[in-house]
């Protein structure tokens, strides 16, 4: 029996540049980057130096506070640079690919391994960070036992890849092994959450050992936080883990083939991409082979991930650890004469305050302009329309801003992450930095609770 949950609240932003369902032949970038900044709250401790030879699976850095959590190189080659930012914050470890060598972690059937052995294997290989947790939306703590584990099988973010398309039907066995591995990490249920619409790929039908649920509705219906909220909400003191479905295959491969080989299908999207389509690429790969001669001219913003939650990268930057999407949109650094007074046929808005709302079918070339200045909270009742949870977004934000720990807890801080509030940030007429506020709140709770 599968559950169907229909959500109404939310918003599918009408942005141009969705990918065509074509898979470009596999790309092999020359450079790969692993970015500690992909992991909120991580204090990385470096264990390689420029010039070191590494293999796929060799640790590059680890979590200073939990040294067992290692972050490894996705390819074999040479470490060529370590980039640091302000206050020597570690930003990127870059590897130049050479050869195709893998650290061998040994093949084994996860069914025969005890839980701790499985954890050890995941930790050693660098696949552990693929497992994240609520509360706080951070890499899971290996010493916990979650009450449930969620496998997120679709994405509703703007221009997001169609998971029904990217799931590899030929790797049924990797998928099964991955599921077995993951479900052994919890004493509770393992949930597989799929899109209610579209054709479910063969291998996702009749998966044994998991509880299948379907969600329908506009973004953020595909966010794992929303799934957890509706299926098995996180209360104080409880922990839920979750993994993206593409990583389930990599985890399966780790046990079947004994290697760390985080290949995935990635959607290259956005209005400024000439041929938006899918690419097979390894995690951490440079986007250069995908975007070279494939983007329009002008001042562009490259994003690893989607326009709401992705991270800004350079034109030759690297695919983020958790990302299955690259987006390229125009920068919006222009002045607009009496911009707020124009009818706005080409201005997209969640509200109906622009002439564009007469053309509901249109999609827009959205840019990075703020479209206004930051203001105090004035308008109410808007955030609630895009958060399909029993949570009061504005009140929670205000509790965070006033650092009211009890109130944050009461209003559901344990259930949320910044990505669940990204649409609030998009629609906010006061231009509030809502995702930063939520992260601040999560960080504060982590500190208070530790």
């Amino acid at each position, binding site marked *: 029996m599968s559950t169907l949950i229909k959500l109404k609240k939310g918003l599918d932003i009408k942005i141009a540049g969705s990918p065509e369902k074509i898979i470009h032949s596999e790309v092999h970038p020359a450079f790969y980057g692993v970015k500690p900044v992909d992991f909120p709250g991580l204090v990385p401790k470096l264990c390689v130096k420029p010039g070191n030879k590494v293999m796929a699976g060799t640790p590059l850095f680890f979590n200073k506070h939990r040294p067992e959590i290692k972050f490894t190189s996705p390819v074999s080659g040479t470490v060529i640079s370590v980039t640091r930012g302000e206050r020597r914050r570690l930003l990127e470890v870059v590897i130049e690919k050479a050869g195709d060598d893998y650290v061998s972690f040994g093949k084994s059937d996860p069914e025969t391994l005890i839980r701790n052995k499985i954890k050890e294997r995941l930790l050693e290989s660098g696949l552990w960070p693929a497992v994240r947790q609520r509360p706080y939306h951070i890499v899971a703590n290996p010493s916990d036992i979650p009450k449930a584990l969620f496998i997120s099988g679709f994405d509703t973010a703007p221009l997001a890849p169609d998971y029904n398309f990217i799931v590899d039907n030929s790797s049924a066995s990797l998928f099964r092994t991955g599921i077995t591995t993951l479900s052994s990490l919890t004493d509770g249920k393992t949930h597989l959450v799929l899109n209610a619409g579209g054709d479910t790929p063969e291998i996702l039908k009749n998966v044994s050992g998991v509880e299948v649920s379907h969600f329908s509705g506009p973004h953020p219906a595909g966010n794992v936080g929303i799934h957890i909220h509706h299926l098995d909400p996180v209360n104080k003191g409880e922990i839920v883990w979750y993994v993206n479905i593409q990583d389930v295959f990599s985890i399966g491969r780790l046990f079947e083939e004994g290697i760390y080989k985080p290949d995935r299908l990635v959607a290259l999207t956005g209005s400024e991409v000439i041929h938006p389509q899918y690419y097979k690429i390894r995690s951490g790969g440079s986007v250069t082979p995908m975007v070279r001669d494939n983007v329009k001219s002008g001042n562009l913003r490259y994003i690893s991930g989607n326009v709401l939650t992705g991270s800004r990268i350079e034109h030759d930057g690297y695919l983020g650890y958790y990302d299955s999407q690259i987006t390229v949109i125009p920068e*919006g650094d222009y002045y607009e004469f009496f911009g707020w007074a124009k009818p706005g046929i080409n201005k997209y*808005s969640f509200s*109906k305050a622009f002439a564009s709302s007469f053309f509901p079918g249109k999609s827009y070339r959205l840019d990075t302009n703020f*479209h*206004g*200045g930051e203001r105090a909270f004035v308008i109410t009742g808007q955030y609630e329309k895009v958060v399909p949870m*029993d949570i009061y977004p504005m009140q929670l934000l205000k509790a965070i801003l006033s650092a009211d720990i009890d109130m944050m807890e009461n209003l559901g801080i344990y259930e949320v992450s910044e990505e669940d509030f990204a649409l609030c940030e*998009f629609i906010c007429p006061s231009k509030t930095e809502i995702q930063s506020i939520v992260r601040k709140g999560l960080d504060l709770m982590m500190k208070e609770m530790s």
Partner: protein
Amino acid sequence: MDSLRKKIDKLKPHFVKGGRFEKLQSVFEGFESFMFVPKKVTFKGSHVRDSLDLKRTMIVVIIALIPALLFGAYNTGLQHFRSLGLETGVMQNFWFGFLRILPLIVVSYVVGLGIEFIAAQIRGHEINEGFLVTGMLIPLIVPVDIPLWMLALATAFAVIIGKEVFGGTGMNVLNPALTARAFLFFSYPGWMTGDKVWIEGMIRGQNIIDGFSGATPMALSAAYETDKLPSFMEMFIGTIPGSIGETSTIAILIGAIILIVTGIGSWKIMLSVLAGALGMGLFLNAIAVNPYMELPVYYHFVMGGFAFGTVFMATDPVTASQTETGKWIYGLLIGIFSIIFRVLNPAYPEGVMLAILLMNVFAPLIDYFVIQSNIKRRLRRAGVAINN
């Protein structure tokens, strides 16, 4: 536009900290961002932002106010010439009224924005757009003959005591425009009530023809002279004495439609105010012991400031309830109290203003209970989970 942009870029260095006119930084930025939407791009978080900002939001409200403003101008002329017993054309009425109203609008904006500019500079904030709407609301809810100095004083009081002391736009408890009206009402009742203040020229002892009365439907009703009320249609169209912008229900309805269609104004609040008033009105009809209580309930919707208050005042997002459930309760209570104040307390013929101000004060309490029920739901869920 390029040349203008270049001029602004050239002037800009004088207005930043350390520049010659650094004290005018907020004012400069205010005007700059008024003319040009800034070129600021997203830095962290969402890479794209909705086209809607507060300026746009406020401008939509002002557009929604325009029908009431235009009709107010026309009606000011109409009532004036009627009182003199003259038959005049539409344009003549409108033009006469427009010239009388313009100074009120100018004074309201100059005083209010002046204070906003100073407050923004002191706080080091950008100028907030909230007053764009307040500045238009204030002239629309006063009698046309209000002396300009009184209006200036009321505006200053509303902005300083009603808003800035609480932290500025977004932080105020009371609706600033209503605060201004309440200030006038209690400080200068002679200019805010009675039969003379609503018709241009009347209070200055201008000649009027015999038999003309400048009494508003509110005053007539409070005096139990409901038989003298203008027809429902007249009150619906708005060719009756009253505050400048509040007389025409039809013009206000057009504004309501604009607010609801654009999603800027809360239809929940408007509907629930209506429902509250309807319920209370019907109840009073049922137990009626005087002519005012007998007045058919739908008359209340077209009389006095009910329509204007419902559409433009009760829906102020800052001072209304902030939770969606709270908005229903808040609106219902405004409707109920409006009718109670009107009918059962003749000392204050206009009940809507006081009902909204009262509920402004209680809105945070309503929200508190709504939020508490959410918290209880969450705790109960946790309790169930632990017991399992």
